[in-house]
């Protein structure tokens, strides 16, 4: 009778150990999956937010060619950034007769005006097609006639 009781009580140990091991495995694997999911979700969310903000900056930048003048081999292009973000601009000038020049990487802060100088030789009466290209792929065009 005694040994039977002992046997019965011993039989219960293995299932408890098995349950503990199984639970530990589930917790470990689940924790790993949880951790990976959190990391992946954070990376995906950050990438999405960054790309959305980049696209947002592209659509909110605003600039215009406010004034152009020419003096002694220098074309002065006044650019007004009336948007809410700073812009980096490349200015290209194409004149009649195939004369071409450019000025690259000009930063214009938000709500400010900046004069970009383009070295180019022009004659009176020349027509100059000016293209201002932002690094966010927006363009502004202006035609200037040399007085």
């Amino acid at each position: 009778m005694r040994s039977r009781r002992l046997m019965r009580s011993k039989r219960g140990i293995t299932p408890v150990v098995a349950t503990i091991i199984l639970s530990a495995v589930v917790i470990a694997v689940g924790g790993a999956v949880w951790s990976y999911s959190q990391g992946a979700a954070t990376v995906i969310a950050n990438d999405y937010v960054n790309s959305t903000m980049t696209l947002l900056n592209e659509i909110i930048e605003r600039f215009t060619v406010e004034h152009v003048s020419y003096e002694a081999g220098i074309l002065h292009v006044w650019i007004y950034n009336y948007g809410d973000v700073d812009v980096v601009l490349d200015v290209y000038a194409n004149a009649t007769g195939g004369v071409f020049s450019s000025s690259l990487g000009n930063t214009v802060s938000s709500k400010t005006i900046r004069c970009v100088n383009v070295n180019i030789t022009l004659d009176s009466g020349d027509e100059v097609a000016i293209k201002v290209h932002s690094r966010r792929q927006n363009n502004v065009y202006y035609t200037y006639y040399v007085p």
Partner: protein
Amino acid sequence: MSTIRIMYRSRKRGVSTILGTLIFIGILFTAVIPMSLVMKQADTIYEQKKLEMERFDEERAREEIDVYVFPTEGAASDNLTVSVHNRCELTVRIIRIWINDTFIATDYVVPSMSELELGSFYVAPRDGSTYDVKVTTERGNVFECGSGTISYQDGHWEVENLMINVLISSSGIVFKIYVTLPSGDPHPDSPAMVWKIGGSAFKSFDVTTPGAGTYNVKVKRGSKLIHDENVTISWPSGPPVVWVYS
């Protein structure tokens, strides 16, 4: 005895299922839902800003001001006054005034449908020199002087033309405009028949030869008089162009 074993086994089977469910719910609430919330928030900001910019572009397109320039103290003045007439429903902020290739930073606010004289601005005029004036608004519009280039000749200021511009927005298609000179005679182009195309009809009357003075402008639709106004051109003490809105 067999009943006890069955109960024990069925209880044991449930532990992993519960843990798995808890982990799944945990992942859902701590990773997937915050991720979708952040993405949704970014989308909301994008859409909101896009809408704001659409409104801004629309407002920018609606900005409409007339700019005129005249000498501040008579024909021999060294200073110029810029007259700005805001003809749109928006308040316009003038941030720069260009006189030839130099600009003057300003901060004038012109309320809707009102006029404001800006300046005066010293220009040190020389005989034979010409001046192109334009203004820049905060919304990025540039408006050139409606009376063209102003020049300084033989010690006094000159403009290309003195003009009376008539803009008709009243209902109707065909209108007749009558302009009477200060002498009482009709203007050579009067009566002028105009057709409204695209929401408004426009006619310009050159009054350079009669010169400064008070003119009478009448607008008729058929036989009905719809507008009668006396306008004064006081050049060089005032703008060389006056507008009549009907």
